[in-house]
């Protein structure tokens, strides 16, 4: 326990100090925070519940559009804003910007949660690959449809309000960094709290055998929907922050980007290890470092590298880093293995 507190304190201190120690990496660190949030929330579905979704991108994109729309719509006519395509006809004062951002983030988190609750009953009744394909369709459909709606910029995109002139570029970076770091801490604490309750056991029971769980008297549908709503809440929040950070929202390339973010969150969780608390965090960190570190070498070939990476990870490391560690050092995970049993295993191999 003591060791854990030290670890958390170290991470917290690193997080608080990082933007001042590594000022050049502020944006990267904020993106990393958002990625960890996404991977952690995907893990609630894919890892704990056994429902491999491609559709969490729906909530992410929804949150992104909602946050920006609220932020603009609270003070200026939304249609004219998108019409002007980001020209400075309307300028947010600092107070307006932060007010709009605060309200926008709340809306961006709450509305996707409600949406998840509404569609959950219909969608979560599907199982296995039907669920995967259905959610894939949902994400792409959302992207295509939002790309045709005029008021949020249609195909030409939506420019989010620029950061007000209170401290220049440095202040902008720090603001978004602490926003995303706050979201990360909120997510991690919430998910950790959830995982320490009976709820996690119920989700695991659903993953292992849903029929049996139902026969044991668990209202599986209720818990599946709650799980999805939790994911949607944090995905929407992450989307809202990311929208402000990127500064420009496009329907298929930024918001409902199933080809990038939608796959990234699955990949990060699998890379780190599905069904563990720390797996997605480690996976997202490793993935982000790899992506930013090596992307420049593959300039132009990123997607090729990404495709190869997906295939390699899925085929050769389906258990992820945490799964590998668990197999290597089972004692550290509180698993006691009989020495005889292990010998028998080795002989079998």
């Amino acid at each position: 326990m003591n060791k854990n507190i030290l670890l958390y304190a170290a991470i917290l201190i690193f997080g608080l100090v990082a933007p001042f120690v590594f000022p050049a990496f502020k944006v990267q660190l904020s993106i990393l925070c958002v990625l960890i949030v996404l991977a952690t929330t995907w893990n609630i579905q894919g890892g704990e519940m056994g429902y491999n979704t491609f559709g969490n991108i729906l909530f992410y994109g929804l949150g992104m559009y909602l946050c920006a729309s609220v932020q603009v719509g609270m003070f200026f006519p939304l249609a004219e804003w998108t019409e002007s395509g980001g020209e400075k006809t309307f300028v947010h004062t600092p107070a307006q910007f932060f007010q709009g951002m605060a309200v926008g983030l709340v809306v961006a988190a709450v509305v996707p949660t409600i949406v998840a609750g509404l569609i959950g009953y219909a969608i979560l009744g599907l199982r296995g690959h039907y669920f995967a394909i259905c959610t894939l369709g949902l994400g792409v459909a959302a992207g295509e449809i939002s790309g045709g709606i005029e008021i949020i910029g249609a195909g030409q995109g939506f420019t989010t309000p620029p950061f007000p002139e209170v401290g220049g570029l440095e202040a902008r970076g720090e603001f978004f960094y602490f926003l995303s770091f706050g979201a990360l801490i909120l997510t991690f604490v919430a998910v950790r709290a959830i995982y320490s309750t009976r709820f996690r056991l119920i989700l695991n029971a659903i993953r292992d055998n849903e029929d049996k769980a139902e026969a044991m008297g668990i209202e599986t549908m209720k818990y599946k929907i709650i799980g999805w709503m939790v994911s949607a809440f944090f995905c929407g929040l992450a989307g809202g922050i990311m929208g402000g950070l990127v500064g420009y929202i496009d329907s298929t390339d930024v918001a409902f980007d199933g080809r990038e973010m939608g796959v990234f969150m699955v990949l990060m969780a699998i890379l780190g290890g599905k069904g563990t608390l720390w797996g997605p965090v480690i996976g997202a960190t490793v993935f982000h470092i790899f992506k930013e570190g090596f992307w420049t070498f593959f300039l132009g070939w990123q997607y090729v590298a990404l495709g190869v990476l997906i295939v390699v990870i899925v085929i050769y490391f389906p258990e992820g880093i945490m799964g590998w560690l668990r197999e290597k050092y089972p004692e550290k995970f509180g698993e006691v293995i009989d020495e005889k049993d292990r010998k028998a295993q080795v002989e079998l191999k």
Partner: protein
Amino acid sequence: MDFMVFQYPMITVQACLDGLLLGILFALIAYGMALQWGVMNIINIAQGDLVILGGYIAYFMYLYGIHPAWGVIVSPIIMYFIGVGIYKLVINKVVDRDLFISILATFGISILFMQLMNFAFGADVVLANSGYGTTMLFDNNVTLPNSKIFSAVISIVFAIGLVIYMKKSKLGRAIRATAQNSRAAKILGVDTEKVYAATFGINAALCGVAGALISITFTIHPYMGLPYTIRSFMIVIVAGLGNLPGVAMSGMGLGVFEEFADYILGTEFRIGAVFLLLVLILVYRRFKLSRKREYLK
């Protein structure tokens, strides 16, 4: 929303004919999907990208002065070997695993192909001009490009040919036996590994034919693959595995639906409507089955 399509009967006829001819092509792709799903129990997200790749083969023949219709012969041959290659490299490692693994692995292949095609052929929308002209029907009110009729006929020929091949040939029998029970087939001396490779190759070849036809009748673009995958998936789940007349019917139904969605909602919502229809169909089936306390499996 624009309901003009219902006010003028000729536009309705036009939409129906276009949709039927388009739907036959979809059915051909869906046939390949059903084949590999039934035999190997994998869902290939890269299906659409194989189609587009087949289309580029025909387009390249067109660029070098060969009539693109020959692509119908050349493209499946090349695609067969590409399919077998993909099987040997990736698919054979995911056949016996969880279905989600196969979805994710083929998703990776799909992204890879998309980008490689983007490098190789550029990001422009292209089409191979067959120069077949158009047929006018009903006092010139309905225009029907001959290339669409050509593609429908060729698709039907290939589909029927494949059905006969599956029924009569030795490999066809081996494929059907493996689909029924791969372990029993193995015991009885079927080399299932070879059967799987051949199945994936045949599927890729079918995609090649469909792609060549699409490059003649419609347009191709490196990023256009995923909608074809979703369409074929949808057709297969509506028709059911191993129900060939059903695949043809639901393929044509989907084609007609798309044409009407195009007229009513506008072209920008066409793909969105397809994906939304998939979600609606799955949800409908889920509610229908849940009344019997069952679920889609």
